[in-house]
């Protein structure tokens, strides 16, 4: 049996006396898509940021592809192997879409400009916005911006993708175009750790669903089981609210 590509081990993080993560453990196997859900403030986004070392934790460790984040001496190198997509896209507004996607491949990975542009256009085409490459992000719709942000992460050809509420800032009609890109990605075998409230997406592709509350994992279950027979009252209550949306 191969080792999990992400091993989160008893992770603990507190700031200003507030416990954001309290002993979280989770294994993700290569090729799996794990959906993390839970109420706001439950530590989901913080958990994602610990995986690529954007957040400093006090207890436990995260091991990504054999590298301990806690002891990592070369975080930029580690992060190149982990793509991340944000709720508010976070494209660089003063650069064109193409420049956004090629910046890190050129500066961090050392590709030539021509090679980086070739790779960038390949991924922009994959997410369906190659024709927008010369525009600035402010000229794109929210859905197009988020797809550009996904292409920016993919252009580094990461082993793992982290999604932090990628559709929460989008209008309803743009959610589906982003979800479709994510579905394709999951089906192509990308390892994905996705924080989302899109239960339709979870039902479609998630291998497992993790439910968090107040910094801890309350329940982790196979997708079918999570939706049909949640083990905890707290998860059932949450699911009811998310699915009913009122």
């Amino acid at each position, binding site marked *: 049996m191969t080792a999990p590509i992400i091993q989160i081990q008893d992770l603990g993080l507190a700031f200003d006396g507030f416990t954001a993560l309290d002993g979280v453990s989770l294994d993700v196997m290569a090729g799996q898509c794990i959906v993390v859900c839970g109420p706001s403030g439950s530590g989901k986004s913080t958990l994602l940021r610990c995986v690529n070392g954007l957040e400093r934790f006090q207890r436990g460790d995260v091991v990504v592809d054999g590298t301990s984040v806690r002891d990592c001496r070369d975080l930029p190198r580690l*992060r190149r192997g*982990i793509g*991340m997509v*944000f709720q*508010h896209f976070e494209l660089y*507004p003063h650069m064109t879409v193409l420049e956004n996607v090629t*910046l890190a491949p050129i500066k*961090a990975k050392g590709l030539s400009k021509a090679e980086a542009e070739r790779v960038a256009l390949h991924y922009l085409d994959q997410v369906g916005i190659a024709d927008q490459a010369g525009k*600035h992000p402010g000229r794109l719709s929210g859905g197009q911006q988020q797809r550009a942000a996904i292409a920016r*992460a993919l252009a580094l050809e990461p082993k793992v993708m982290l999604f932090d509420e990628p559709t929460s800032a989008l209008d309803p009609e743009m959610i589906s175009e982003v979800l479709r890109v994510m579905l394709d990605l999951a089906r192509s075998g990308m390892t994905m750790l996705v924080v989302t409230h899109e239960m339709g997406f979870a039902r479609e592709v998630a291998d497992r669903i993790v439910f968090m509350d107040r910094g801890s994992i309350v329940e982790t279950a196979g997708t079918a089981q999570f939706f049909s027979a949640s083990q905890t009252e707290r998860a059932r209550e949450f699911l009811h609210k998310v699915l009913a949306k009122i």
Partner: protein
Amino acid sequence: MNYQFNWAMLITEPYFGWIADGVLTTLHLALIAWCIAFVLGVAVGSCRVSGSAVLRLFGGAYVELFRNIPLLVQLFLWLYVAPQLLPADTRLWWNRLDSVPYWTAVIGISFYTSSRIAEQIRAAMNAIPQGQFRAALSTGLTPVQMYRHVILPYAIRIMLPAITSEFLTVFKNTALALTIGVLEITATTRKIEAWSFKGIEAYTVASLTYLATTVAVIGVMTWLERRLYIPGLIRRGG
């Protein structure tokens, strides 16, 4: 009014040569001081938002020191006090330079202005969403690359209007250099008045010089703002 206007004298020697020298001195004094101030300001401003407590302390001390002493006093300090702190042979070398007042003015105005630019840089960087920092780091850029390619270019676009004002202020602050003996345009004007008793003509030249340069600066900065305009992010205007 018994005043006899004599505008024609302004284009006769020696006045014309003096005016030309004065205008040029004002222009290059302002430009050199501003360039140094901008580089220092960016560096100190970056210190103020850095992760290192030592750098933040240094940046804070620098800004408070140079921002809170009047520029006039700073010029006197640089001229009379600072050289006393130099080793003897360095001091001798400095005092033998031809244009000690000029370089003193460059140093004084640069440091004073850099403290103000540092604060504007800090404010602009604080206005950039946290997510931009995270996004840049998440793609494997080092912190230095992040500042160089993402944060600073973004911050400078946000602060361009403030930079324009600062540039205009530098031009006008160069007038203070006359107090330490630099013959820039205001000092030249006083000299012309003393020689010719034609105060109105002389001061008109100084006023027009400042007005013309600042209008030119505004023109250039407006062009730059258009060029660096971020589509969809910052409202075009002004």
